[in-house]
């Protein structure tokens, strides 16, 4: 589904990704953990080309998205993304946030797009908020709308960039519940997270990153119960 091959990424003189390779199989949930500044979010943002890599390949369904001739907009339709700070469109209602892209990009008739959007809002438990603006929603509600907005494009894979890091603690659960439902339905997911409980319970595979490299990867049991790398051990001893 997604194959990342030896990517490097610099911000000026700072090298944030130092040769990262990984893959995500269809229907797999991969959680990326690691300390701040380790390059987790950059890796995720490179996958849908919000950041351009300096070298290396990223294949999505066999297509190398780092090539300039690739129509990245068509590929991004297949790759949903949820941001740490939600990034809802403040001038549009919840329903319009969800229907905008399907109507404008896919040319889906408005009625049909709204019907789909209502189903998605029902799924994330926010059907009653369809006609309110984002500034009237709590953080957890905003993030659930953001998930519905990404799902409306019927992506094959979903990227989550620290989706609960900006939330008040009591709202983390409601967002994680929605993500668990998605995982149960078989959505392919790549999740950058600090929620170790989620990674252990939902993740099929866990990648531990530090200093721009993947230091260790394995099943949640292996990473959390028997970490081999000492960086992983020291990181987990601080967060668990």
């Amino acid at each position, binding site marked *: 589904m997604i194959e990342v091959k030896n990517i490097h990424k610099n911000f000026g003189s700072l090298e944030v990704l130092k040769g990262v390779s990984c893959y995500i199989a269809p229907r797999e949930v991969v959680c990326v953990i690691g300390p701040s500044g380790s390059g987790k979010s950059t890796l995720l943002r490179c996958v*849908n080309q*919000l950041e351009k890599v300096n070298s290396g390949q990223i294949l999505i369904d066999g297509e190398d998205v780092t090539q300039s001739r690739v129509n990245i*907009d*068509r590929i*991004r*339709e297949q*790759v*949903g*993304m949820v*941001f740490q*700070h939600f*990034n*809802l*469109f*403040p*001038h549009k209602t919840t329903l319009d946030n969800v229907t*905008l*892209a399907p109507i*404008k*990009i896919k040319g889906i008739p408005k009625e049909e797009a709204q019907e789909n959007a209502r189903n998605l809002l029902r799924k994330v438990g926010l059907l009653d908020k369809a006609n309110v603006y984002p500034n009237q929603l709590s953080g957890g509600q905003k993030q659930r709308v953001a998930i519905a*907005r*990404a799902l409306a*494009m019927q992506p094959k894979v979903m990227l989550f960039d620290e989706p609960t890091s900006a939330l008040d603690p009591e709202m983390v659960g409601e967002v994680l519940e929605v993500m668990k439902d998605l995982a149960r339905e078989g959505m392919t997911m790549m999740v950058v997270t600090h929620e170790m409980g989620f990674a252990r319970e939902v993740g099929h595979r866990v990648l531990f990153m530090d200093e721009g490299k993947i230091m260790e990867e394995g099943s949640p049991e292996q990473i959390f119960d028997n970490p081999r790398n000492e960086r992983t051990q020291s990181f987990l001893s601080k967060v668990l």
Partner: protein
Amino acid sequence: MSHVMPGLFGINFIQTLMEINGLKLITSNLDVLLLGALVTLELTALAVAFGMILGLIFGLAKLSPQRRLIYGIATFYIDFFRGTPLFVQILLLYFGILPMFGHVGDFSAAVIACSLNSGAYIAEIVRAGIQAIDKGQMEAGRSLGMTHGQTMWYIILPQAYKVVIPPLINEFIAMLKDTSLVSLIGVSELTLRGKLLYSVSYNAAWVWGTVAIIYFIMTKLLAMLGDYVERRLATE
């Protein structure tokens, strides 16, 4: 003492008479000045309207440094029209450049010069307005598969317009005052009509005082409109 009083009385009398003459001059020519004010408003409205189109185009161009050519053109255009006096721009266009393209009337020349000048200032307003919108909005739009242009049109610009409107009204007010410069190429707007009225009456205080008051009323009304719009946008 007794022969001084009539003298004093006489001076007061003449002053009063002059004042009445000034008042008469203004009341009997007010329609001429007001028609001039109408030309001023028309010119300003056209200049700012065209300026908004130019400003949107060049403001967006100024945000694409990776497209070297259009970025370079936009930078030169904005720097040139903000970095030289409008007065000189009017002279250059009317006497120097526009005649090369055949006959262009003084009003059209004035509209062209003021539009180009206004466009440069509005481009900077547009650029600042767009940059004020959170970077995450563009990323969210792009991550859904929208193109840069679609995201700009459906997501960024509808939010940026709120940021842009107050400085845009300031630009309108500034342009309204600056159009007085086109009196130099014979556009019969408020200042030129004031000049003509002065040259037949030599009553500077009354003529220029009235012209100033008319300008002041126009700009004050615009500023009040600006405050109203700003309040409306704030509560929206």
